[in-house]
């Protein structure tokens, strides 16, 4: 049953061993000569001014979060689409039922979309 996955698992094991091995080997073989200038942050050769932790606007977080939500919705649409045309053939629920089910799902998320729109989360400025 799991026969086709064996090459993939071998590859996975090889990748993990390779990457870990590179890190471990460079830890032992690599020369280590820390100096204060070397450990300072890189700022194109200039002495660094100010901290690297800048505050930035929350709208990036909003956009990312909204993207995730609607992307997951799209992700759910895809496996549904693969079984949609074959539905009803082997005695399962028919195409109409599947369609209604998916439409209910989309309507719920659509209501959320309208809410976000009206709240102005899509306005960048």
């Amino acid at each position, binding site marked *: 049953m799991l026969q086709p996955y064996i090459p993939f698992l071998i590859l996975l094991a090889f990748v993990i061993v390779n990457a870990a091995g590179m890190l471990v080997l460079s830890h032992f*073989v*690599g*020369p*280590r*000569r820390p*100096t204060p*200038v*070397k450990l*300072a942050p*890189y700022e*194109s*050769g*200039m*002495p660094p001014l100010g901290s690297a932790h800048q505050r930035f606007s929350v709208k990036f977080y909003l956009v990312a979060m909204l993207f995730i939500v609607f992307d997951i919705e799209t992700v759910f649409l895809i496996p549904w689409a693969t079984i949609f045309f074959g539905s009803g053939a082997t005695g399962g629920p028919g195409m109409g039922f599947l369609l209604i089910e998916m439409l209910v799902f989309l309507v719920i998320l659509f209501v959320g979309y309208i809410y976000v729109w009206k709240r102005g989360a899509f306005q960048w400025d």
Partner: protein
Amino acid sequence: MKHLQTVDGSDSWLTTKAQSLFEWVIKTTRLDKAVNLSRANSLWPMPFGTACCAIEFMATAASRFDLARFGMERQAFSPRQSDVLICAGRLPFKLAPVIRRIYDQMPQPKWVISMGACASTGGIFDNYAMVQGIDTVVPVDVYVPGCPPRPEGLLYGILMLHKKIKGEDLFDSSLRDEQLLNDKGLRLAPEQIDEISEPFGNSVHQFRSA
């Protein structure tokens, strides 16, 4: 082998024996050569291109002369991920602390190629604003002459650096020591800097003032 040192900081008889055995094994199985080979054939350059030589460097990295086949696949514009600093172009005094800082921020092992006449000696710019050779500021491994050097010339310099790296002793830790500035803030003695910055060639005739 620092964790195997004795209380007074020196290596015990056993650890020196273990170290020399380890070294003998690595050298006999030529693993040190393998390490040198991998270092040489995967040099990621940090192109510190300031002027015309940078254009020739770009030409060398482009398809006709292709640096990627020599392992310089990725031009690392951050010193943190680079092996060799290629200074391509003239260096003004205003930029000297910048290249020094970038060189200091490169992790070991690191090498420097001085590409072109201006980076090697100041080139045609023997004046108040230009550093007369970046070796007054950073230690240089290979000098590539030319104004600008042809891509074949730069490739020859890179292959010369390969040869140097392949001839390095893996167990010579002094090779990988940081070459810092001395307490006066210079890399060389002032007399040495003055000597290597002296005008030569046609520059000798150019001294006009007052």
